[in-house]
């Protein structure tokens, strides 16, 4: 509940700022996918159950601000959370390079999952060139955003009592 109470309002604030301020000041520039960045952080830090619920609700929240069909981002973000949480034992989550690396992979995975789900379920068969062409720029924007937001995530994580499951820490 603590994770949700901290990260849900944060994500809402990010999304409101993204859809208003960002589009007014930088109308042509792609905006960062802050919800994905939160999910990736939670994937490395939060427990499976609480993090999963966070991923699902943040996905639903993103659906309110983006796209056409409710549930679309919920599937994608929950899948990304599950994969990240599944891999975290193999990685040293406390290494500052892990989250940027996960951002690169996660952004690609987000785009590919979007294409897959849109092609599989809906008739948006023309959207994939648009998504594919936007991946490189999206990765750069997300990388810059994660470098800026990481300290904030860490602070909120400490408040929520999140602990990484990095192998060396478990040994201690």
């Amino acid at each position, binding site marked *: 509940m603590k994770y949700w109470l901290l990260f849900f309002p944060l994500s*809402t604030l990010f*999304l*409101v*700022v*993204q*859809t*208003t*301020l960002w*589009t*007014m*000041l930088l*109308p*042509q520039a*792609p*905006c960062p*996918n802050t*919800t994905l960045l939160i999910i990736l952080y939670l994937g490395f830090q939060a427990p*499976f*159950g609480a993090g*999963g*619920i966070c991923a*699902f609700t943040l*996905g*639903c*929240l*993103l*659906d*309110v*601000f*983006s*796209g*056409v*069909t*409710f*549930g*679309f981002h*919920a*599937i994608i973000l*929950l*899948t990304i959370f*599950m994969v990240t949480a599944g891999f975290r034992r193999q990685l040293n989550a406390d290494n500052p390079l892990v989250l940027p690396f996960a951002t690169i992979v996660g952004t690609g995975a987000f785009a590919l999952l*979007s294409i897959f*789900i849109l092609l599989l*379920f*809906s*008739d*948006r*068969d*023309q*959207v994939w060139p*648009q*998504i594919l062409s*936007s991946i490189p720029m*999206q990765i750069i924007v997300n990388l810059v955003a994660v470098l800026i937001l990481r300290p904030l995530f860490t602070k909120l994580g400490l408040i929520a009592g999140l602990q990484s499951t990095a192998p060396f820490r478990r040994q201690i």
Partner: protein
Amino acid sequence: MLEFISLQKRLFALFVLLLCALLLYSYDLRKKPDTNLFERSILLLTEPLSQGITRTTNGVITLWQDYLYLVGVKLKNNELVLKLNRLSHLEIENNELAAENVRLKQLLNFRDRVKGETVPALVISADAMNWFRTITINKGTDSGIQENMPVVAASGVVGRTIKCAAKSSRVLLITDASSAVAALVQHNRIRIIARGTGANLSCEYATRLEEAKIGDHIVTSGNGGVFPKGIPIGTITEVQTPKYGLFQAITAMPAVDFSRLEEVLVIVKQEQ
């Protein structure tokens, strides 16, 4: 099996959650567009914040453009520049008012041309993701707006409403890949479907029998059940006629400049 489930309880719960998300998405995809309680609540709660940020940013931009930018000059030229500042402030204000006046006049003229009841609205935000093309307007169910209502601007079709809360609505732009509008090439009446491709429109099912030309205008056909007949959609920019096949490949540029869209009209009641 039960033993396996109890061992992998958390993983199993997450898979159940994923299945729920999949079912939710699949269900939402197949049913008539509507706005659920969660969406309504979030839109209702965030609408004042969105409006506040938009107004504050506009205020700051205006302040910056009208006053702060001139502070340095003012220090150098004292009274003269102060006068100039005041005049330029007034000029900018006048220009802004004149531009707004022109836009609103166009919208008003267009409103008179549209047969039916319309609700004017302001664009308050854009889509949170880069590959969807939706905007949010500051009017919702309180103003009589429902899902699937046509949204237009003075220069042409904007899109249709897809999610409606009490004081705000999301509009799917015609340039979104999931948007398809029944249309006509104005001069030779070829029936087409104008589908969004992100920035432009791809006109599908244009028969080869009558050739479309670059510069031809595309208007709504009134057949899709959402848009009234005869509203401009865009202008043809590219025509390709393949050697084989039944149809021409047509690309069109939307009539509306979505990057500068500020005011729109929602047609809440169409005359039959």
